[in-house]
């Protein structure tokens, strides 16, 4: 029966290959049973018209196929979706602000550089860059959330059963901000993509009304990229682990401290290394400041790790005893 064959085939098209043949064979047999029974009950011939009535009752192929698939298959599930929507909104607002400034800057500088009016080519390129930027950024946000969804699903399956003893204190220094962690992961990915795949776009600027690649990173910088990539990879993995555990733990705090020291070593190597940037002296002065901040951050983390208390210097200044 042609209608049955087409119907069964269409359902099979929406199923994974390992289920397809088996489900198709069973459906074909069941539909034929249904047709025969109906023909007998209504004293009608088992023809194409009856076959159409049977498959119509069965439902749209896509809907039927969906029922054969495992339930709750999400890229981003309902629990994370509100946070995802918020992150997309924030990303769009940031991109809109940055892009608006870029387009405005391109319009003004190209108009100033050319008396005949704005350079349309520069404008078109800038707008194309903006569209591409939106695409890349939204893809990164989606990727981060999809990873979190997988990690959380695994934690729920493999993790221990919840008990009241697991409730954290109201004021909990180890509590994480999920949104903050996601933004940090997004930034790590964004920097990794930029430095690895578009290094020429680091330090891009408008010069005489045109978007110019300034060659900010000198070729020698590439030799440091493996070290930097390892840092970003470890940092991303640490964020994932902390997110999956739901809060900071002693082990992850220790890993954060170790990672901070590793970051400080990379910064030190960049500072003492050969010229790596345009305006190398100036940039390295900034890096020295960053290194000082990183070391300070590591000291604070070490204090927290050893005392298990947050670093609150004003409490010492006030002469109050540290909080228990």
């Amino acid at each position, binding site marked *: 029966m042609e209608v049955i064959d087409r119907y069964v085939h269409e359902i099979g098209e929406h199923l994974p290959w390992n289920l397809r043949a088996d*489900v198709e*064979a*069973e*459906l074909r*047999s*069941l539909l*034929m*049973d*249904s047709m025969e*029974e109906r023909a007998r009950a209504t004293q009608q011939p088992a023809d194409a018209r009856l076959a159409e009535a049977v498959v119509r*009752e*069965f*439902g749209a192929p896509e*809907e*039927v196929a969906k*029922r*054969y698939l*495992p*339930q709750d298959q999400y890229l981003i599930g309902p629990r994370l979706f509100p946070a995802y929507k918020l992150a997309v909104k924030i990303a769009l607002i940031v991109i809109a602000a940055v892009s608006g400034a870029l387009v405005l800057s391109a319009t003004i500088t190209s108009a100033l550089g050319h008396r005949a009016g704005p350079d349309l080519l520069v404008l078109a390129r800038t707008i194309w860059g903006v569209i591409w930027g939106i695409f890349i950024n939204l893809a990164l946000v989606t990727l981060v959330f999809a990873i979190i969804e997988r990690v959380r699903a695994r934690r729920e399956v493999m993790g221990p059963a919840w008990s009241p003893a697991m409730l954290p204190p109201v004021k909990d220094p180890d509590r994480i901000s999920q949104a903050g962690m996601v933004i940090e992961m997004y930034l790590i990915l964004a920097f990794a993509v930029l430095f690895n795949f578009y290094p020429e776009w680091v330090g891009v600027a408008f010069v005489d009304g045109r978007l110019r690649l300034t060659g900010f990173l000198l070729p020698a910088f590439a030799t440091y990229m493996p070290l930097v990539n390892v840092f970003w990879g470890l940092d991303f993995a640490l964020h994932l682990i902390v997110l999956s555990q739901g809060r900071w733990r002693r082990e992850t705090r220790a890993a954060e401290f170790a990672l901070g020291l590793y970051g400080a070593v990379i910064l030190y190597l960049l500072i003492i290394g050969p010229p790596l940037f345009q305006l190398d002296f100036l940039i390295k002065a900034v890096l020295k400041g960053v290194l000082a901040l990183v070391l300070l951050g590591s000291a604070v983390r070490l204090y927290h790790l050893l005392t298990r208390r947050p670093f609150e210097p004003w409490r010492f200044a006030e002469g109050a005893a540290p909080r228990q």
Partner: protein
Amino acid sequence: MVENPQRVSLRENLGLEFRRGALVLAVLSQLRQEQYGYSLKKALAERGLEIDEGTLYPLLRRLEAQGLLRSRWSLEDGRPRRYYRTSALGEALHGDLAADWQSLARAMDRLLR
């Protein structure tokens, strides 16, 4: 009398929700004897539980994937048919769920009286 469409839609959705849970128990109860899909549908309908085929057959596959049913192919009158029956786990779960159902039904009876 025109029915309130919101009431109709809510009744449909809420009704579907408690029916969905009951279907698993209904299917397990009938598959303690081996049956193929269409004969199961008829057995359920004869006992007053109409269920559309597009829902019933995928449910059988899901219960099999969960280890509650086992199945085998058999050739009858030149047509291959897949026969299902409860596994040991399905049998045990049927007992548990039936007890839960009876207890819930008694409680609901008292509430609705």
